[in-house]
């Protein structure tokens, strides 16, 4: 399984922004890396491990990184031109331009990010993840993707009952 260079670069930059990774380490991590290149998944998981290894509880840190990655996507990437409001992000993420555009490999390897239920009027959705990435990171991605997408006052993402099922509330 491989991940897109832009995905790795985004992870590194988010970690630097959050003071979880030194600039020099970031430079070392992304040396020679191209946004449109493809790299082994282990590079991504290894970088995540490096970023979170010094924290006794990596969960809040991973969530923060996921949120920051989405902020970069909206402010420095193509996010604004793709998503015009928070709930729309959920549909985008489960489509071919979302998670699927950042990974490549067999279905078994990459898994997916699926919008299982969506009720715009009630402000509820259910996202299901089968990816090999940390769920806390994905929780941050969902929260950041919806919150920063605009048009909502509140976003709640709860996967405490089942780590792979994200109950989303947006108002």
């Amino acid at each position: 399984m491989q991940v897109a260079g832009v995905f790795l670069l985004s992870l590194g930059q988010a970690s630097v922004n959050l003071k979880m990774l030194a600039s020099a380490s970031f430079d070392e991590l992304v040396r020679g890396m191209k946004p449109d290149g493809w790299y082994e998944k282990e590079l991504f998981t290894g970088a995540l491990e490096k970023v979170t290894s010094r924290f006794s509880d990596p969960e809040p840190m991973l969530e923060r990184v996921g949120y920051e990655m989405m902020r970069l996507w909206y402010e420095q990437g193509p996010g604004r031109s793709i998503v015009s409001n928070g709930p729309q992000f959920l549909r985008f993420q489960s489509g071919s331009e979302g998670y699927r555009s950042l990974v490549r490999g067999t279905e078994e390897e990459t898994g997916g990010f699926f919008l299982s239920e969506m009720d715009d009027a009630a402000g509820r959705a259910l996202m299901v993840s089968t990816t090999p990435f940390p769920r806390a990171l994905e929780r941050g991605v969902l929260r950041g993707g919806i919150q920063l997408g605009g048009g909502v006052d509140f976003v709640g993402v709860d996967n405490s009952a089942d780590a792979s099922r994200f109950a989303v509330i947006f108002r």
Partner: protein
Amino acid sequence: MKADALFAGEEPTADASLDGRELTRAYWRVRALREELERKEQYWKQICDALGNAYDELERMRAQLEQRVDGLHRHLATKVDEDSTRLLVFANAQATAMRVAPGAVLNGRTHVLEPLGQGGSAVVYAARDVVLGGSLAVKVLRRPDDRAATLRFLAEIQAGSRVSHPAVVQPLHVDVSEDGLPWVLMERVEGRSLHAQLRLAGALAPRVVSSLGAVLARALAAAHEAGLVHRDVKPGNLMISTAAPGLRVLDFGLAGRVDAW
């Protein structure tokens, strides 16, 4: 009043109110802020813990570094002390000095005779003890301003005085001449170097090699017991003599300490 205005920092007037949908929006905005504060609290707690651990690690590394620096300081101080002590021996000896040359009499009893040999930094004279009649040699350092040569000269003297073995030449007296040249009086070794012997007569008989090898091994073992490693054992530094024990180990000028190996 609108919820957006309230959260943009606009101060509400005394009769301001949030009604209907605006009240609902304000509720969710407050709840979002509260939950964000909780997440930030968790995030900063982790950052603070990690910083604390990093600080502890830095302190541990600093302590290790200080220990190493202290060790280096102690080693350096010892080295300077040793070198200074050796050089002082010569500096303090100036009062009784005289020039070392053929015909001179050193210490009232050592008659300096003809030169025996000359190297890059030292010259060796034959000498005779006018009281006891023994055959001696005087080695004079010609370039005392050459620090490396001086240290080598001193190391050789010190090694000779520390190693107690018949195959290691002992210094008998150390002094400085009136023209400031350090010299050492030692027994004279008659014979020729193993290097010269091999060039002259070819390989030695196995029995001789065995005998000389045993002497050499015992001499080096004695040096090791005295805490010294010769570091320059070669045919040119082994003198074959007719006098017992048949072999002399010369030139301890490059000797090092055993504990440094």
